């Protein structure tokens, strides 16, 4: 493994339990952080729904990635971004979210994409 460093932007844009992609994205975030890359995580579109506290998972075989979100801090993933328009479109309030996050408008999201060396959009 080289000591190079890249800006990696990982985007979660699928809702909880909709597909394996959100979990795949989170695993990339944790691995990139472990390899000391400069990683940002953006919850985009329906992905913002991961930030709601979920009541039970017994009836679902899919991993509830919301439970893993608090561990992001341990991995020093501090750049958590959130799609402000998606929050509004789903009538969600900031104070009901599991994690504090930086709210971005479309132009800022576009800039975050432009600034990244690599984007994983899962």
């Amino acid at each position: 493994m080289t000591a190079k460093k890249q800006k990696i932007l990982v985007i979660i844009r699928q809702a909880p339990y909709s597909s394996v992609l959100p979990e795949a994205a989170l695993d990339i975030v944790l691995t990139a952080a472990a390899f000391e890359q400069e990683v940002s995580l953006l919850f985009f579109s329906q992905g913002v729904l991961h930030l709601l506290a979920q009541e039970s998972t017994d009836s679902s075989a899919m991993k509830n990635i919301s439970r893993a979100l608090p561990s992001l801090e341990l991995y020093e993933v501090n750049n958590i971004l959130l799609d402000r328009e998606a929050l509004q479109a789903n009538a969600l309030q900031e104070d009901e979210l599991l994690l504090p996050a930086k709210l971005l408008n479309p132009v800022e999201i576009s800039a975050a994409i432009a600034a990244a060396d690599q984007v994983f959009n899962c």
Partner: protein
Amino acid sequence: MTKTLHLINKAPQHSSALDECLGLILSDPQAHTLMLIEDGVYAALGQADTNQHFLQGLQQSKLPAYVLMEDLEARGISDKVSGVFSLVDYTGFVDLTLKFSKVQSWA
């Protein structure tokens, strides 16, 4: 003539199924009933922008509509559901399928 229960398991963001299903059944609320499961339950979010048009159509048509409680709870959205829907658990889901002559799934 038979009565049909229509199962939708995708969110409006991932499938035109709900749109297409309603296009066929809204005009005949006696013969059809709608049930949302899995990702389909996001269509029951009462305040979501994308759902307003469809929720209005549903209300006007008087088509009976159900949503699976366990899938709402798993997603943390059971307190955000539009009043147009009746909530059922898996036992209620089983009962419901027996009240209709057949079940048609949409993905």
